[in-house]
């Protein structure tokens, strides 16, 4: 199967004062389309840095990153922003919803960057709300929703523009076990039924078990943990 994500000899260094810290050491990674990949590893191992590079939020110090056929390390800031809008959906640990906007307006946000009409946007938002089971909460603000519901809104927002890739940074890190199970089930369903490629960073082995592939990031290097048969 063709790779959606391809990293070649990727190095990431941060400069702190006079010190240069290499967080990722010559990483090579191929992620085929439709894969549900879990990135695990201890704090500071570089997994979030890797996720940020794949999601186009950060640039490598050296190496090539090709995502959805685009050399994203060569794009300008504006091009990268437009590329993210088209190809990547982000889900964060703390949901990162706009507190002043209702659930449906939060979900609509990425569509404002498209040429869709108001009516089309409303239709798409209604479909996304239905997909995550929150049709009845469309008008609710984030403060009126539980953590699980907020994360469902965040997932709907990530999916609304039909991205090539779903990037999730500890999506269940702030949820109780039962709610986390629901969210992971939802992600798994999106991967299985809609063929979404998902990359998820997690500390939690139980969460990682929902993925079809697990990679460990240790001291800036990748260690294949094996392929998993989805539950």
């Amino acid at each position: 199967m063709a790779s959606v994500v391809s990293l070649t000899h990727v190095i990431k260094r941060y400069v702190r004062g006079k010190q240069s810290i290499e967080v990722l050491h010559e990483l090579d990674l191929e992620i085929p389309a439709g894969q549900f990949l879990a990135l695990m590893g201890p704090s500071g191992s570089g997994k979030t840095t890797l996720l940020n590079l794949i999601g186009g939020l950060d640039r490598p110090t050296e190496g090539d990153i090709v995502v959805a056929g685009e050399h994203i390390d060569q794009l300008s800031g504006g091009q990268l922003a437009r590329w993210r809008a088209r190809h990547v959906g982000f889900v964060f640990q703390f949901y990162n919803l706009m507190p002043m906007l209702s659930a449906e307006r939060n979900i609509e946000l990425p569509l404002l960057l498209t040429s869709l009409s108001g009516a089309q946007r409303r239709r798409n938002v209604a479909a996304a709300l239905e997909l995550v089971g929150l049709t009845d909460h469309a008008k609710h603000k984030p403060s009126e929703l539980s953590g699980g519901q907020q994360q469902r809104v965040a997932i709907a927002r990530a999916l609304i523009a039909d991205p090539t890739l779903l990037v999730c940074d500890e999506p269940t890190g702030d949820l109780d076990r039962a709610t986390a199970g629901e969210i992971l089930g939802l992600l798994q369903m999106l991967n299985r039924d809609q063929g979404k490629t998902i990359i998820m960073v997690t500390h939690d082995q139980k969460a990682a078990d929902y993925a079809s592939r697990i990679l460990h990031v240790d001291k800036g290097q990748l260690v294949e943990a094996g392929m998993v048969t989805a539950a």
Partner: protein
Amino acid sequence: MKYLRLIWTGLWRKKARTIFTLLSIVVAFLLYGMLQGIDASFNQLVDTGRLNVLVTTNPAGLPLPLADLPRIEAVRGVTGVTYRALFVGYYQQLRNIVIALPIDPAGFFAQNSNFTLPAAQLAALEHTRTGAVITASLAQRLHWKLGDHVPIRALNARKKDGTSDWTFDIVGIFDIPGNPARDESLLLMNYPYFDTARATDTGTVQMFSENIADASQAPQIANAIDNLFANSSSRTRTETEKATAQGQLAQIGDLDFFVDAIVGAAFATLLLLTGSTMMQSFRERIREFAVMKTLGFTDGGIAALVLGEAVLLTVGAAILGMLIARAVLPRMSTLAAGTIPGIHLPLITFLAGIGAAVVLALISALPAALRAQRLSIIAALAAH
């Protein structure tokens, strides 16, 4: 248009702060509207002043003897002379101020041909001792109509019988198209009625007004008139109607400078206030802006949203402030007892105010917009 809701929502994130900022801007633009309106009205007065009409007054503001009229009429170059006195009173309540000019109707309307009064009503004024003609706006304001018998209590003219109550018969309604005094509460009455009934200053007028055939001869003719009375007890100062208006304006001082200074100070304060509000609002939303960038909003797009909020708030509040000024200004003419006729906020000043509001908004929000533009997603999400 699709971003308007986003901008609007961002604006009302902290309701109390936004309301206070909005009120500050409203007050600043109310001040701008009022001062610029007064300034513009004075300037319009000067603009409507004529060069072929001379005005003769006493340099100390004292009344002039009507007996001087024939000597002025005889000056070479003068083609007609009229005169007027001043009567200020009110109808029923003090807030119903009426400015009245005791005139000689034939001479006055001959010189002021832009005053439109039907010939029959002019004749009625001339033939009715207590007759009066009024502006349409005065008729509308005090609900007067032709044939009404109206009492006015004078503020500056006591009668020989010891009272201050004057009665008039409304015999005409006139208009002054294109003149700032058009909307004012002006009443024209017969000078003889006024002069014979008043207790003091009988036989005097406030000013003479001369038509001249050649405007280029205005300085020489004015000198000739003033020379006639140079050694008399009632000296005169004659100048063109336009110069008189400019002189009256100059008595107040450099109005343009004062208006500009006050408005400038208000706007400078506003700039700091709005700038501080926008920066505070930006700091509170660093994470939200970072998330929006993550979703694909460009650096420039985020900066435009910040600027859009400032423009929407400032322009909205500025329009509100200027609309209040527009509503209040006409009432100021009445409060000023007619000394500043036709005070209003001209459309061009209103539009200039909107332009100023846009510039103020852009300058005040620029630091916040630049910081939003340069915001690093990684740093912002990690730190906030």
